């Protein structure tokens, strides 16, 4: 009797363990699926900055984020220093800012790290992240210690250069 009980308990133990694995796999599956769904609308506004986005967002919730309104807020305009002021960069799905020549926005300034910061799109918003730069990144005059979302009018400063999202 006890032997049979122990056997059943042992099967129960194995069942719990395998059930745990099943839940783990399900969690991973759900996560990957959500990620893929979230990833679908991302490239659309970045790839086609000129369209109004309405047609390409058939199934998505009504766009409220600044990126989708029009092409407003999808450009970086250099404000200072005067030598390069007025230069405009179109934002890509990911725009890197830094001193290195393969950055999307190359800034010739000794206080700017090789790959200093990046602006990328996440859930219909632009997000600025400092990439571990030596001298830091300022957003609207406060130090960026954490990726932050930005919209039109926000100012990003790296070294002596101030870029405005327009």
């Amino acid at each position: 009797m006890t032997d049979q009980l122990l056997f059943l308990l042992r099967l129960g133990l194995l069942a719990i363990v395998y059930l745990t694995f099943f839940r783990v796999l399900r969690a991973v599956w759900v996560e990957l699926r959500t990620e893929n769904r979230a990833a679908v609308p991302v490239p659309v506004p970045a790839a086609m900055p000129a369209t109004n986005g309405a047609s390409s967002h058939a199934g998505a919730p009504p766009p409220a984020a600044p990126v989708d309104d029009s092409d407003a807020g999808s450009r970086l305009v250099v404000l200072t220093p005067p030598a390069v002021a007025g230069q405009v960069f179109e934002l890509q799905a990911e725009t890197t800012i830094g001193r290195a020549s393969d950055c999307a926005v190359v800034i010739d300034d000794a206080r700017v790290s090789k790959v200093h910061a990046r602006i990328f799109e996440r859930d219909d918003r632009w997000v600025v992240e400092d990439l571990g730069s030596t001298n830091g990144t300022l957003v609207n005059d406060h130090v960026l210690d954490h990726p932050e979302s930005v919209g039109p009018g926000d100012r990003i400063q790296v070294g002596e250069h101030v870029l405005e999202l327009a």
Partner: protein
Amino acid sequence: MTATESPPTHPVSPLLALKPRRVETGLLVMVGAAVAVAYALASFGTTEAIPANLGPFLLWMFGLGAVAHLANRHFASGADPVFLPISLLLNGLGYVVITRLDGSLAALQSTWTAIGIGGYVATLLFVPRVRIIEQYRYLLGIGGLLLLMIPLVPGLGTEINGARIWASVGPINFQPGEFAKLTLAAFFAGYLVDSRELLRSRLELRDLAPIGVAWAGSLGVMVFQRDLGSSLLFFTLFVVVLWVASERWVVLAVGAVLFFGGAFAAWTMFDHVQKRVDIWLDPFADPKGDGFQIVEGSFALADGGLTGTGLGQGEPGRIPFAETDFIFAAIGEELGLAGSSAVLMAFLLLIGSGLRVSLRADRVFEKLFALGLTTLLAVQTFVIVGGVLRVVPLTGITLPFVSYGGSSLVANYVLLALLVRMSHEQRVLIRPAKGTA
């Protein structure tokens, strides 16, 4: 950015930041139930009584799990929920089997588990961003080499069971090599970030010099410490990370040639290597002597059958070093194929999660570091389980989280915390910039 925004426009925080921890809570409850049942079963199997200390044991176990879980909620709220529960499951199952094999180890192993969880929480606390580790890559590399050499220092190092991998400070014995694994993984990743562009653009003979150095170093570990397992582990770690960093297959080919060359040289030069290979090829040549451990391990696995003899009802105590090197055979005997496969699956899930962290990383250092840490777990599991199952010659090394052993447990919890930290960092927690709202 007005107050009227509906949830879909701000989907990140509830979905990605909170849900992983809720999933983790659910998984932890299941793992807790499994370990509690296993503990009760093991005790009932040996003494035919419900264990008297079941209450304190459960309290201790759930307490440690809760501490780690709360640390995740606080310091790594976005991390993958798979890491902690699976590791605790392996740790818990290992603990049950260890105490069942040798009751005197119970207190020690539970203390080490507590220290391990402490190390886990401390790592999450003191490493807010893994990229800060990159700055100390050379320091960590030198530190790793020094750690490896500690056991060779007369007076500090101790030789136990033929391997000189122990250091003794007062009453405490530990294996510095377990921590050297971690610092060397950080060093390899950091070093290869620096030289990656060069390696990718062209590959000349002298660019392969670092593999040569790693190879010589591994051979050194093997010759001076007589520790085949670690030697294999370090070499594989370096070749895999270098392969991914350079994106060149030739690295794997050169690595394989060097490995087999080194293995052959070691085989011709060292008696103890020759003996290992002979035992591997034919353990039944001397079943009561040299082959005893492997033979008993095979018998144990065979005895286990599909669902095992039952916890506490087998005789895994016959196998020498059943609580460290041969714990996989002990689990196979008492929980059968189903139980030992579960252990392998747990490692598979853990390694899969680790590789996902590496795949998702958008900075090279994190990518290579996560890969290195995962490789350590994977190779270590393969080497010891393969040794027990006679897939490869046996080299004494611990089964991560499962085997008895303090250094290994603590080092693996630190390793886990680093993966959890990187996993958390990959979730961008978006908050509106000040001044725009």
